[in-house]
C-alpha cells in the first residue's frame, strides 16, 4: 500500500457569522489517483480546497504532504509544493493578458523578464491539451469556460503534483475534454494526484478512484470506485431529495398550445469584443410557452447573441422584436421592463453585487422603477425564493459574497425566473448547481414556460440539458444558427457534428 501524497486530518473551519463550513474533515489523496470530493451546494467543498491551496487557513487540524506536516500560508506556498488549484470562480485578472496572468505564477520567469517565454510555453501547452486561446488576448474578452481553460493550462504549466479542479471540467468543450482526459491519464501514471470537484456524478464515477462525500461540512461517505454506485452516492449527498434527480426529457403534452410569438429575431448581426462578426445573420422566433435551446461549443457567439437580445450589446444590423415592439438597440432598461429575465454567462460578475445582501440584490431588480422600496414585500419574495430553491444559509440579510458558488447561482436563477413574465434569456442556467437543484431549476423553467406562457431562449454548453429541456433545438457554430431541430427525432450525433464542424 502506498502512502498518501497529501492528507488532512481533523480540519475545522468556521466563518464569522457562525457558519461551520468544515467539521472535523479528514481525507487522503494518493499518488496516481483521482479523488473526487462531492457534495451539494454549500457543503464545504470549495472551502476545503481553498485551505489546501493556502487561500484560507484552517481553524484546527493538520495537513501532511509526503508524510510531513506542513503549513500552507499562502497560494505561493502551495504552488511551491506543487499543489495547484483551478478555481470554481476564475481567479484571472481581467485587464491583463492571458500570458501576463500566467507569468505571475511562473517562478521560472524573472521579475525583469518579458512575456516572450511565457507566450512560447503557453503555445506548447495549449497544443498539448488542445486549447485555442490567444496568449495576448485580454482576459476580459474571454468567457467563463475560456477562463477556466486558461486556468487549466496554468496548472499544467506549473507542473502540479497535486492538481485541484474545482468544477473546472463540467463545461469543457468535447474536443478539449477528450485531450484533457488523455493528459490526466498520463498525469496519473507519473504518480501525481488529482482532486476533482464536480456536480456531474456520473463523470466523477467514471474517472475517479476514490470518492469523498461532504454534507454540511462533514464527511458522510468515503468510497472507492469499485464498490460505489450512482444511487448510493446521490443518497449520501442529498438524502431524500436524491430520488427527484432526473435527466429524462420532460414529457411535452403542450406542443399544440404554444401561443403567439414573443421574441422575433431577424437577420441579426452582432460584433464581438474585437469588432469581429460574432453573430451572423441569425433569425428565429420564440413563441409564448416555447423553450428554445441553443447548443454549441463555448465561444461560437451564443453569449453575444443573448447579450444582444437583452440589449447589452449593440446590434449592427437586423432587428429584435419583443412583444411586437422593435427593441433593437433600445437599451436594457426598455427590454427588461417588458418582463424579460436574463441569466448572463458570468453571473457572479454581471448578475449579482457581492457586497450587498440577498434581499438587496433582489430588490434592485424588482424595485427598479419605484422611488421607495417596499422592503416587507421584498423580504417576502426573498424568503419565498430562499425556501423554494433552498438557498443556504437561509438568511435574506446575508451578504452574497459569503455564499457558496452554487448558492450565489441560485440567487440569480431564482430571481430571474421570478421576474420573467414574458421571456427568459439564459446562458448555462444550471452552471454550478448540484444535481438536485439543477433538476429542480429545469423543472421550474419548464413550468414557467407551460404555466405562465413565458417564452424561453437559453444557450447551454451542456448538450444533455439542451435535449432535456427544449421544444426546439438550434446549434450555434461560428456565429451561424442552424436549426430548428426536433429534440426527440434528431439523432444526437447529428447535433454534435454540427457543433464541431
Amino acid at each position: 500500500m502506498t502512502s498518501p501524497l497529501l492528507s488532512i486530518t481533523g480540519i475545522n473551519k468556521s466563518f464569522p457569522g457562525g457558519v461551520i463550513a468544515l467539521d472535523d474533515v479528514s481525507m487522503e489523496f494518493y499518488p496516481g489517483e483521482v479523488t473526487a470530493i462531492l457534495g451539494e451546494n454549500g457543503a464545504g467543498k470549495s472551502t476545503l480546497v481553498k485551505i489546501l491551496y493556502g487561500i484560507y487557513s484552517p481553524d484546527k487540524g493538520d495537513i501532511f504532504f509526503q508524510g510531513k506536516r506542513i503549513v500552507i500560508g499562502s497560494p505561493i506556498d502551495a504552488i511551491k509544493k506543487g499543489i495547484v488549484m483551478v478555481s470554481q470562480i476564475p481567479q484571472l485578472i481581467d485587464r491583463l493578458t492571458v500570458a501576463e496572468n500566467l507569468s505571475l505564477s511562473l517562478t521560472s520567469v524573472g521579475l525583469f523578464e518579458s512575456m516572450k517565454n511565457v507566450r512560447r510555453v503557453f503555445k506548447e501547452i495549449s497544443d498539448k491539451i488542445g486549447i485555442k486561446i490567444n496568449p495576448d488576448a485580454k482576459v476580459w474578452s474571454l468567457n467563463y469556460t475560456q477562463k477556466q481553460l486558461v486556468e487549466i493550462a496554468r496548472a499544467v504549466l506549473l507542473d502540479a503534483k497535486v492538481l485541484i479542479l474545482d468544477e473546472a471540467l463540467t463545461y469543457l468543450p468535447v474536443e478539449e475534454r477528450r485531450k484533457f482526459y488523455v493528459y490526466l491519464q498520463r498525469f496519473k501514471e507519473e504518480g501525481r494526484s488529482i482532486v476533482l470537484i464536480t456536480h456531474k456524478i456520473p463523470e466523477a464515477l467514471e474517472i475517479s478512484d476514490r470518492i469523498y462525500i461532504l454534507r454540511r461540512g462533514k464527511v458522510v461517505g468515503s468510497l472507492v470506485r469499485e464498490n460505489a454506485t450512482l444511487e448510493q452516492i446521490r443518497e449520501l449527498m442529498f438524502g431524500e431529495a436524491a430520488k427527484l434527480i432526473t435527466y429524462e426529457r420532460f414529457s411535452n403534452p403542450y406542443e399544440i398550445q404554444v401561443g403567439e410569438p414573443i421574441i422575433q429575431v431577424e437577420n441579426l448581426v452582432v460584433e464581438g469584443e474585437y469588432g469581429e462578426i460574432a453573430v451572423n445573420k441569425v433569425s428565429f422566433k420564440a413563441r409564448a410557452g416555447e423553450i428554445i435551446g441553443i447548443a454549441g461549443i463555448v465561444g461560437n457567439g451564443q453569449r453575444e447573441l443573448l447579450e444582444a437580445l437583452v440589449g447589452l450589446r449593440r446590434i449592427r444590423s437586423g432587428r429584435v422584436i419583443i412583444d411586437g415592439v422593435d427593441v433593437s438597440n433600445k437599451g436594457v432598461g426598455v427590454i427588461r421592463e417588458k418582463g424579460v429575465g436574463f441569466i448572463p454567462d458570468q453571473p457572479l460578475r454581471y448578475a449579482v453585487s457581492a457586497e450587498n445582501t440577498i434581499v438587496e440584490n433582489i430588490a434592485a431588480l424588482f424595485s427598479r422603477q419605484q422611488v421607495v422600496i417596499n422592503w416587507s414585500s421584498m423580504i417576502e419574495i426573498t424568503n419565498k425564493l430562499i425556501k423554494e430553491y433552498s438557498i443556504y444559509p437561509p438568511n435574506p440579510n446575508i451578504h452574497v459574497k459569503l455564499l457558496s458558488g452554487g448558492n450565489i447561482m441560485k440567487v440569480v436563477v431564482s430571481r430571474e425566473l421570478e421576474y420573467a413574465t414574458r421571456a427568459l434569456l439564459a446562458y448555462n442556467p444550471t452552471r454550478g448547481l448540484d444535481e438536485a437543484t439543477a433538476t429542480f431549476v429545469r423543472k421550474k423553467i419548464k413550468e414557467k414556460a407551460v404555466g405562465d406562457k413565458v417564452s424561453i431562449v437559453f444557450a447551454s454548453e451542456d448538450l444533455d440539458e439542451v435535449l432535456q429541456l427544449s421544444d426546439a433545438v438550434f446549434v450555434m457554430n461560428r456565429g451561424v444558427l442552424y436549426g430548428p431541430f426536433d429534440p426527440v427525432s434528431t439523432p444526437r450525433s447529428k447535433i454534435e457534428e454540427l457543433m464541431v464542424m
Partner: protein
Amino acid sequence: MKYGGLIVVALSLLTGIGVFALFSWSIGINPYYVIESILTTFIFPGIVKDFLILSLLGYALLIAFKGSLWNIGAEGQMHMAIIASVYVTLILFFTTEKSLPIHVSIGVVLLSIVLATIAGALWGGLAGAIKAYTGVDEVPVTLILNYIAYFIGNILVYGPFRGKYVWGYVRTDLLPAPYKLSISVKKTITGDPIVDTLNGYLVEAIIYSSWITALIIVAIFTYWLFNKSSLGLKIKILGSNPDYLVTLGVNVKKTTVTAFMLSGAIAGLTGALYYHGALWRLEYPLEYQTMGYGYLAILVTWLSMLDMKFIPISAYIVSALIMGSQRVSSLPVVREAFAVIGLGGAEIAFRLLMFGSVLLSYSILRFIQDYEIRVVKS
C-alpha cells in the same frame, strides 16, 4: 457587544493620545499637560461649530462615497454655493438697514439657501456628468473643480463682488444683519465648571440652532435614502458592482450624476448655512478662509468607514482634535520645550504631529471593530 463599536472608538482614540503623550514626554514635555489639554477639549463647547459643519459635509460626501464616487470636491461645491448666496444677499437684495420686515428676511435667506443648494448640486453634478459621460476619473476632476471654484470666487471678490464699505480690503461687504442666521446670546459665567460647560453647549446650540436643524434633516434624509429608497440602493450597488446595474437595466450614468448632485446639494446647503451663520463675508483669497472644511470632511467620512452612525462621531473627534491640537501647541510647556530643541516658533509642527498621529492610530485601530481577529496557528 452592544457598545462594542463605541468602546473600540474610545480605546483607539485613547491609544493614539497615549502614544502622542509618550512622544511629547520624549522631547521633554510633561505628558500630563498634553493629555489634560486634549481630553478637556472633548468637552469644550467651542467645538460645536466645527462639529456641525463637518457632520453636514460628512453626510454630503457619504452619499457619493457609498457609490464609490470619490467626490473630493465638497470644498468647491461649498464655495460655489457661497458665491450664489453672496450674489443674493449682497448684490440682489443688499441692504444697509439694521432690520427688515420678518417675511422679507426669511424670503431672502430662503432664496439664498435654495440657490446655494442648487449651485452646489450643479457644481457636483458637473463632476458627475464628466465622470458618467466621458469616463474621466472623478478624483482629479473634483480636485480641479475646487481650484476653479476658488479662482472664480477670487476673481469675483476682486471685481463685481468687492464691497462698498471695505476700506481698501479686497473683500465683500458684510452680510446685512437681517440676513444673519445665528442667534446671538449672552453667556453668563457662574464659575462652576460643570454648569459652565453645559451652559456653553446650550449657548452654542442656540447660536447654531439653524445648523442643528439642517443636520437633523440631512441625517434623516441620508437614512431614508440608503434604507428606504431605490435610488439609495442603486447608489450602493453602483459602489460595489456597476456591471450588475447595467444588467438590471438601470441607467448608470443617470445614477452617477444624481448621486453627485445630491452630494453637491448638501455641500451647497452647508456652504449657505456657514455663510449666513458664521462667515458673513468673502475675503480674498478664498483658499484660506474656510479652514479647508471640504478637505477635512473627506477625513471625517473615511474615518466613519462609510457607516452613517459614525459620521457625527468622527466629525466630533476631528473637531475636538483640531481645537485640541491648537490648544496643546500653544501651551507654555510646549513652547519652552520647542525653544530648547531649537524649534522655537514652529510649534505648529507639534500641532500637526498630534492631529496626524492621533487620527492615524485611530484609523488603524478601528479595524478591530469590524473584524474578528483570528490567531492563525503557524
